[in-house]
């Protein structure tokens, strides 16, 4: 019998409650401290915090594949790299993207563009902190990383660092 709270053998309510309140990670961590490296957290789910178990689950060709959670999160009929369960399809898609994401390629083609955005964000941070005596690091990093990501993926920046706020173009 896998250890765990009694309720978890019958219903997933307690786990769902932790998920809804955004505390699943802390709840599961607490259960690990209480019950050990293997905890039954719902009728159909076991949490593992044993390093050996981790390797056994995540090593190549372990027999464990991405759970139904991945197909539930987006359009199931169109899996992407993140949601693909089939190992062969995943490998093929990864091959398509490998070169564009190689260190050499990224440095050669994108280092300058990314660096300009970092400089601009840091200059803006300096400006805000010298004026107000404090600055919102998360705001500026978010604008910066979004500009970088949109430029790399879309081929055009949303120029949110310049505007200093989340622009109408953004999804946030």
């Amino acid at each position: 019998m896998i250890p765990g709270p009694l309720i978890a053998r019958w219903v997933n309510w307690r786990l769902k409650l932790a998920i809804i309140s955004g505390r699943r990670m802390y709840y599961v961590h607490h259960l690990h401290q209480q019950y050990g490296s293997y905890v039954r957290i719902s009728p159909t789910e076991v949490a593992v915090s044993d390093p050996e178990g981790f390797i056994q689950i995540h090593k190549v060709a372990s027999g464990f594949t991405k759970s139904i959670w991945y197909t539930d999160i987006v359009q199931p009929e169109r899996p992407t790299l993140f949601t693909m369960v089939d190992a062969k399809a995943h490998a093929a898609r990864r091959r398509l993207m490998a070169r564009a994401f190689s260190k050499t390629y990224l440095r050669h083609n994108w280092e300058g563009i990314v660096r300009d955005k970092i400089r601009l964000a840091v200059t803006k941070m300096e400006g805000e902190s010298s004026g107000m005596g404090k600055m919102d690091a998360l705001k500026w990093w978010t604008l910066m990383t979004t500009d970088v990501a949109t430029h790399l993926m879309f081929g055009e920046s949303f120029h949110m660092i310049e505007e200093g706020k989340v622009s109408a173009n953004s999804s946030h």
Partner: protein
Amino acid sequence: MALQGGGIGAELPLVRAIGQYLPFEPFRTLFGGGHYLKDKAQIAVKNAYAPGNEKNLFAHMIHEAEKGVNLDETDVELEAAGLIVAGSDTTAVSLTYLVWCVLSRPELTTLLCAELKQLPEEYCDRDLEDLPVLNAVIEETLRLYGAAPGGMPRQKLNGPEYLGGHLIPAGTTVTTQAYSLHRDSRIFPDPSV
């Protein structure tokens, strides 16, 4: 927002099913975010196919795909949208934690600044790879405050398996949360420092 909506949708399908039809703006943003991001992702497709236009990472992917792999515009849109979600907020949150970790440890701040001052005037990304303090700071920030500390749920469908002496029936979801593994004193002595 779109990913939050996706996450909630996966955990509570009924809430998503009803939520997206409720006439309140927050619900629409939360559960309709996927469509919105998809609209934006079409820019990626346009730019990737346009000859001589400003390049993006997908121009490359499409070029590779032309050699005979099955990949259409919708796939490119979805990958682009996915990578924006995966790459922007996560990196911003990790950077914020990194700054906080360094500034709340004055000794570490001094050590890191001393190391960075030794960089040449015109340094590049390659030079940063050799800095031990900087890289330790990055690794430790990711260990304690990585932006995706959750479960990585997996399932074995083709039969049961023994894990740590426990019989796990086929189809059981097993999750291995980084939050706990990264604080395991068997791997990291003094894990909370």
